[in-house]
């Protein structure tokens, strides 16, 4: 990731089982488990510090339910 680029984090809350692995592995504390529950009764992650995300991809690699991923915003890509 280049300085000045913005990262967008996507969460599919209906796929989440609330294991909390994404929250535990995130080194920059971007995520937090929500207080509300999804339709399955699990607390899903929410983004609290979006500007801190480094797009390391750990949350995407560790999520067992394919519910979270991050991409660089197209508008902020240089050139």
């Amino acid at each position, binding site marked *: 990731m280049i300085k000045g680029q913005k990262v967008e984090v*996507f969460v599919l809350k209906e796929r989440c089982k609330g294991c*909390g*692995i994404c929250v535990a592995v995130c080194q920059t504390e971007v995520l937090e488990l929500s207080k509300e529950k999804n339709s399955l009764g*699990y607390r899903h992650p929410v*983004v609290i510090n979006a500007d801190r995300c480094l797009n390391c991809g750990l949350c995407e*690699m560790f999520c*067992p339910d*394919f519910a979270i991923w991050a991409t660089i915003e197209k508008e902020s890509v240089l050139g």
Partner: protein
Amino acid sequence: MGTQQTHPVDALLHTENLPTIWCPGCGIGIVVNTFIQTLKRMKIKKDKIVIISSGLSCTGKISHHLSLKNIIVEKPFDEAKKFKEKNPQSKVIVFFSDSDLMVSSIDGLLDVCDKGTDICAIYINSFVCSTLFFHKKFTDFNFSRKDRKFEPKAVFNLPHLLKNHGASYIARWTPLHCRRLSYSIKEGILKPGFSFIEVISPCLMYYASRGCEGNNIDRMGNYLKNATIENGHPVENLYTEEMEHIIIGKFLDRA
């Protein structure tokens, strides 16, 4: 938070079956995610990958979530050998766990290893049936929480056995070493001959009652903390006991 509704690997998944069937905090989901991400990075065509499993235990449900060619049979290694002989171009991946070895015996595994069949076998070791070292039938297991006994004994050394039977690639990781696991899966798929990758993953159902491992993340973190990466370590001295020191790494890579 974005509102995009498709995950980058959704094309390789049965999205209608998500969330996955495994317990929150189980390592199998991470292994499947790592496997799918590896396939995407390798840019292998979808029709050249074949997943074979026995359908037994939690590992058998992997094919339930992948929209690749799936074969579920009683003896996965025998089927893998036949399939590879008929379709030498396709990449055959066998997912199995200790329950498979308990129920359908180890003969098929040793047979494909002896013959050097080009298969990548991913073994998820959750110490549920304590691979071959208890030598107990399922009916001998005590499933009640109070009376269950965990007797530390030397676990059967599967990497050592398979090295002596001619495996060409042997590695062992935990789910939290997912980047290294990803490299191993890639090498295992591309390597000619029999490749064996062991993933040591906690079973929450079995160890939840012990009370010494904290919440679901801590249980997996314990394996990460107790693991030492020693690539090229002699497989004769591999020592595994659940919740004890674990040696992981790439042990064998025959040229």
